[in-house]
């Protein structure tokens, strides 16, 4: 007897209806439509100005500068954050305490204040010299003669970010079960190798969602670097233009559109990263594995007939 002959007919039930969802959706679409109509016909929004400046080369250049600020500051924050997190968790008391003091200072003061401070850095330290104290100098750099506000903006944002990233990464590392450390130790792995090969890859799953948040937040925090002062990023640039043409609303909308567009791209990237690092987490089999199992099953049945 074959299995097919005895298997009952598939269930063909009437699906559950959700009338209130339709009512809710209709109401929301109606309200959004009204708002859009109002916005389109309201002259104060200045849509012609919006269209004119949306792809203005000064604005797109500013958007590029914003992206670069975000990228470099985040990279600095990430690298330093990993180092700080590993230091905080290391068995070495010196590293542990240095990391703690760093976090205490950089999380304990506003990022705006830090950015102003970095802007004043060349006033505090006019020259950078490399040499032996009270002895000969090998390297000399005069900070006052350089236009380094872009670098200082990155340093300011990155060092602040590192403190937050360190906590996110530490939470990720702590989320990895202790048994993983024991198994690695028992196999003869060093503490550092255990971190690199076993703990951090598993911590990534916990680290990535809040890091995506931080990245998006960083994109918007770049609007504060005017404190350094660095003025060529998106928000300050559009504000400068609007100050000249007396049209603040359309240029705010231009800036908002760019921020939203960049954030959308980042969210797509985050989705793929999360997918990559969730390897081996789910018991759910992939389509390929299910196919292979089904094939094995039908093969076994044919054998029985």
């Amino acid at each position, binding site marked *: 007897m074959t299995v097919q002959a005895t298997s009952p007919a598939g269930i063909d039930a009437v699906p559950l209806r959700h009338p209130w969802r339709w009512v809710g959706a209709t109401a929301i679409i109606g309200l959004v439509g009204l708002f859009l109509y109002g916005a389109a016909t309201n002259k104060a929004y200045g849509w012609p100005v919006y269209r004119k400046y949306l792809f203005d080369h000064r604005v797109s250049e500013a958007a590029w500068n914003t992206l670069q600020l975000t990228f470099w500051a985040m990279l600095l924050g990430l690298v330093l954050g990993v180092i700080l997190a590993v230091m905080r968790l290391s068995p070495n008391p010196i590293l542990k305490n240095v990391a703690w003091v760093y976090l205490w200072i950089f999380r304990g003061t506003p990022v705006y204040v830090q950015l102003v401070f970095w802007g004043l850095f060349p006033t505090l330290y006019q020259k950078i010299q490399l040499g032996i104290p009270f002895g000969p100098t090998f390297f000399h750099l005069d900070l006052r003669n350089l236009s380094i506000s872009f670098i200082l903006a990155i340093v300011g944002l990155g060092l602040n970010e590192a403190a937050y990233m360190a906590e996110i990464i530490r939470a990720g590392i702590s989320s990895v*079960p202790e*048994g*993983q450390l*024991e*198994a690695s*130790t*028992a*196999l*003869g*792995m*060093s*503490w550092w*190798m255990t971190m690199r*090969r*076993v703990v951090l*890859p*598993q911590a990534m799953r916990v680290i990535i969602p809040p890091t995506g948040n931080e990245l998006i937040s960083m994109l918007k925090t770049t609007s504060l670097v005017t404190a350094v002062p660095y003025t060529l990023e998106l928000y300050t640039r559009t504000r400068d233009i609007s100050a000249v043409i007396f049209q603040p609303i359309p240029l705010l909308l231009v800036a908002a559109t760019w921020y939203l567009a960049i954030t959308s791209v980042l969210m797509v990237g985050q989705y793929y990263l999360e997918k990559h*690092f969730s*390897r*081996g*987490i*789910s*018991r759910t*089999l992939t389509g390929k*594995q299910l196919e292979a199992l089904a094939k094995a099953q039908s093969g076994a049945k044919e054998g029985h007939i």
Partner: protein
Amino acid sequence: MTSAAARPMVEAQQVCKDFGALRVLKGVTLSVERGQVLVLVGPSGSGKSTFLRCINHLETVTAGRLYVDGSLIGYRERGDKLYEMSPRDAAKQRRDIGMVFQHFNLFPHRTTIDNIIEAPVHVKGVGKAAATDRARDLLNQVGLSDKAEAYPAQLSGGQQQRVAIARALAMDPKLMLFDEPTSALDPELVGEVLAVMKKLAGAGMTMIVVTHEMGFAREVADQLVFMDGGVIVESGAPRDVLSNPQHERTQAFLSKVM
């Protein structure tokens, strides 16, 4: 001093372990000859797992001495003084001691085969191709040659534990420690893990096994040790201890588990 080859594989002399003010091991003395299987039984909290973890220095011994293959675990002995070992040297000692855990502790982000080759490739520096060949061989030995590409979460508990045994064996240890290897398994999966362990014992591996499986102890062990309250209460050939326990604490324990 006798040569290393003549000494037993594991020698514990008055091993004590404190956790803060709490003394968990109160002077454990035993020895395991090469190729012998020692089964350690006792109620939970008796210190048997702690003793096992001391052997590969996952825990540091507070007093007494522990030797594996003639070398002192965790310290260097020079004259009558002991020097704390560097993490690097301690890791080197652990390479030769395989350990299997109650909860398997496989690396969930790596496939079965990658779990097994991880330590040989990155700790011992074996070539990846050679390590993979050896890993397939080991998977075959534990009866899982078709699971090489599966992730641990896709395996049953018994299969995971067999992979964990293969992973430990991949380092070619001279001693294998089993910390309640079947306690987290469904009853119908216990047999497949014990079968692998029996095969291993038959092949001459020196083993120390903490378990509640008295049938396994009776059949495989050369020496059965009953621990309670951080001390060895009774030890001897498994048949004698199991069928004719001398101490009343042993009798009480065995009447509950058998």
